[in-house]
């Protein structure tokens, strides 16, 4: 070309000026997941108000005193919703507004601000419980996210959790290894957990790569199979495989002390929490800094281009499912080695969909997995207390959770409500491609 095009400044990226008013248009899109949660919680609240109101009375009040009377009749409903949410927050984080003396003996209470009979308190025990509860969710969410990055929808976290837990618990209690020092026993059990989950995940990955069979169905089938397999392995008496014959309920034997995750003092905070955090860093590094991660993401973003670039789509699909399964297996191992110390049948019921929700909430970003998992664990922990204090069924929390997922996935709804601009094409997060061709 005779004329050269105007010089594109090749070294400088557009620099934002420092002291500039940050507009809603900029932070809005980033806040979408948070707003999704908020919107879902509001809907849940509305539902509570709805179910807590005496509608006949409200109608009468409206007839006699107009809008003011109507709103007054909503009082009890609103009050109930308030109590419910306060209970949820307390159950989740330990922050509550109660009478300190009403707390059960041996529960640590930190009084922050006395307000008459009641006080704003902090119950560390609740927070600890939430952290412990959220730990496997971080790993399970990571598992699903890795799958998404490769264009795979892994609903099999539950089955992979079982697979990992089974192998880990066996390594934990088998007499032959009982004398191993902890420094060997624990890594071995962890490796077992990862391996179990990885194999279980790889099955679906292999079937997808070789036969095109969609992983949604296969992973769900594998979940059902895993549940029953675990059930049989644990309960079987002829032959006895994993059953603890001395126990009064069906379960595996307890693992050796040398296989248990070390804990922080007397608290339930266990080593698995550190593993989860480490996994977040490791997965992030793997996806964004390594060649394998690059391949995986390319296969997910455009399998045709991946083939053109010389990558093996088959190998990467299997690898993705194996890594994904391995992470879920690690979560299962963590629950066994760190919390329960044995494995009863039916231990992981219902975790599969939770992991998807968390991955969606975090928009498959590994680091965002931590707050997303904490939110989820918090919701579940808070639900128990909410049921006691406000007499609202735990299932309502499940509905709120479903709404959260819905608002995150179909974030258009949230964007319309809160006046955020629509997703631009570059921001598309492609999760999966129909039945995959």
């Amino acid at each position, binding site marked *: *070309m005779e004329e*050269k*095009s105007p010089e*594109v400044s*090749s*070294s400088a*990226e*557009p620099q934002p000026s420092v002291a500039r008013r940050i507009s809603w248009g900029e932070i809005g899109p980033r806040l979408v997941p948070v707003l999704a949660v908020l919107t879902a919680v509001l809907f849940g609240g509305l539902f509570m108000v709805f179910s807590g109101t005496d509608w006949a009375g409200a109608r009468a009040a409206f007839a006699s005193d107009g809008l003011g009377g109507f709103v007054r009749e909503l009082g009890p409903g609103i009050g109930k919703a308030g109590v419910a949410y306060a209970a949820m927050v307390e159950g989740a984080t330990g922050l509550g507004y109660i009478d300190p003396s009403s707390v059960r003996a041996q529960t640590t209470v930190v009084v922050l601000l006395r307000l008459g009979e009641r006080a704003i308190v902090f119950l560390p025990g609740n927070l600890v419980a939430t952290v412990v509860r959220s730990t496997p969710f971080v790993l399970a969410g990571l598992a699903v996210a890795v799958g998404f990055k490769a264009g795979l929808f892994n609903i099999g976290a539950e089955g992979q959790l079982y697979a990992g837990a089974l192998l880990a618990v066996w390594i934990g209690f088998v007499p032959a290894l009982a004398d191993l020092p902890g420094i060997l026993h624990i890594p071995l059990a962890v490796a077992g957990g990862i391996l179990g989950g990885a194999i279980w995940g790889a099955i679906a990955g292999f079937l997808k790569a070789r036969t095109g069979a969609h992983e949604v169905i296969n992973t769900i089938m594998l979940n059902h199979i895993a549940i029953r397999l675990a059930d049989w392995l644990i309960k079987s008496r002829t032959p006895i495989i994993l059953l603890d014959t001395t126990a009064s309920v069906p379960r595996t034997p307890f693992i050796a002390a040398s296989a248990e995750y070390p804990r922080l003092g007397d608290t339930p905070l266990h080593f698995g929490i550190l593993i989860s955090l480490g996994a977040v860093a490791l997965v992030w590094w793997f996806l964004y*800094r*390594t*060649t*394998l991660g*690059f391949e995986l*993401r*390319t296969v997910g*973003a*455009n399998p*045709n*281009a991946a*083939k*053109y*670039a*010389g*990558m*093996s789509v088959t190998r990467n699909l299997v690898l993705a499912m194996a890594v994904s399964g391995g992470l879920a297996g690690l979560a299962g191992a963590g629950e066994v080695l760190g919390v329960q110390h044995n494995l009863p049948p039916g231990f992981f019921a219902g975790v599969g969909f939770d992991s998807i929700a968390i991955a969606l909430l975090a928009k498959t970003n590994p680091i965002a997995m931590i707050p997303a998992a904490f939110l989820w664990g918090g919701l579940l922990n808070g639900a128990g207390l909410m049921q006691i204090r406000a007499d609202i069924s735990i299932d309502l929390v499940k509905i709120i959770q479903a709404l959260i997922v819905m608002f995150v996935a179909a974030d258009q709804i949230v964007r319309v409500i809160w006046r955020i601009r629509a997703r631009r*094409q*570059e921001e*598309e997060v*492609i999760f999966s491609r129909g039945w995959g061709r």
Partner: protein
Amino acid sequence: MEQPPVLEARGITKRFPGVVANDHIDFTLKKGQIHCMLGENGAGKTTLMNIIYGLYQPDAGEIRVNGQPATIHSANDAIGLGIGMVHQHFMLIPELTVTENIILGNEVTVGPFLNRKKAAAQIRELSDRFGLQVDPLARVGDLPVGSRQRVEIVKALFRKADILILDEPTAVLTPQEAEDLFEVMHSLVEQGVSIVFITHKLKEVLAVADEITVLRDGHVAGVVQPKEATEASLASLMVGREVLLRVKKEASEPGDPVLSVRDLRVMDDRDHLVVDGVSLEVRSGEILGVAGVQGNGQTELVEALTGLRPVLGGQAFIDGHETTLATPRQVTELGVAHIPEDREQDGLVKSFPIVDNLLLNVYYQLTYARRMVIDDAQAANYARDVIEKFDVRTPSIYATAGTLSGGNKQKMIVAREFSRPIKLLIAAQPTRGLDVGSIEFIHQQLVAIRAHGVAVLLASAELDEIMSLSDRIAVMFRGQIIDTLPAAGASREQLGLLMAGVHAQAA
């Protein structure tokens, strides 16, 4: 009394985010006229037609049909006014039969049930009347391209169109088939149909138009009578400046063969033999152009040579090594570059940043990755270097590839492929859908690497491009190379005959 124009557009304006596709366009179609709309890719021709056909709504302006103002909010409205459109990418459903495709939306029924027999009879009647042979019972997916186009035209006629818009109809036809189409167009005009013929091919315009409207950058650059125009004058109206119609290149001094193909046989996705015993040779420093209309096996040939499609029989050798069963990576590592036919689908990842796209074939090599860890600094340096050299216009190497224009996407791919040491370049339809500026750039790049001694295999359906760039031309028809001849003496007519399968006589 003079008849009002059968179709008139006044002051049509249409904006999309970041671009004004149509800028106060006036357009007049008289009854019984073949009016050509000429413009390069991106000039706004298709947008205007989509507005007339009701698929888009204009931001300003009005449309009149037979002198009456018309509101066209949907395709149904347009159809009701007698406007029919044959799109550039056929709007046919391969799984359904010809009859089903034609009656779709306008079904011939007995109660709620389809009356296929009656429909087929009606179609046959239309087909005979206008001289457009179609088989009502055939499955569209099995039909060759020329037949599919006829189905599209019959589809419009079935809905009683008397204004027919043809959008780039000859893109998929041999020169002979294009002639046939022109005959059909004349016969339609005799029966009272008025035609808008959209194209970017200058020769056709001069051959068939009654009147020519040239669009450039969204506005009307001129309305011309064919008698007063030449290819050069039209080209400069289209682009706004002098255009090189043929690329300047030195005579070639070819060296040793780099690519040798012997009797290659390849199947397509539906298990038909689509490459049937192809043999060819490309030497270093020469460009072998594979001419032929799309659908004769060029796509599959290119895929087979680059390892993306399994080979049924025969052999391929690159630089002395046998690559018949090689994987794409092995082929790349032998020093082969591939510009894929479908850049969006195969050549880049839209959601990835440009720097990642530039790494696509080389990310694992030591320069960019030590022991599986990617070196971001190295990658960034390389990316910045290369986008400057190849004039890829983007604010940042971290912008997503999806934000680039068509021309810049292709330049990015060229940048990537040319930035490693290569011996062979396989380029498939490298300038499809690009603006003239980008086309010129890519042609110059091809000529430049040829001068550096790279062997180039160029597969293109644009005959002008083949004739302009190639040293030798191999014509492909129904999976075979009908003939290979030096580009110097080859004429359009000669090549056209070959593309249609007529064997040349021994010289």
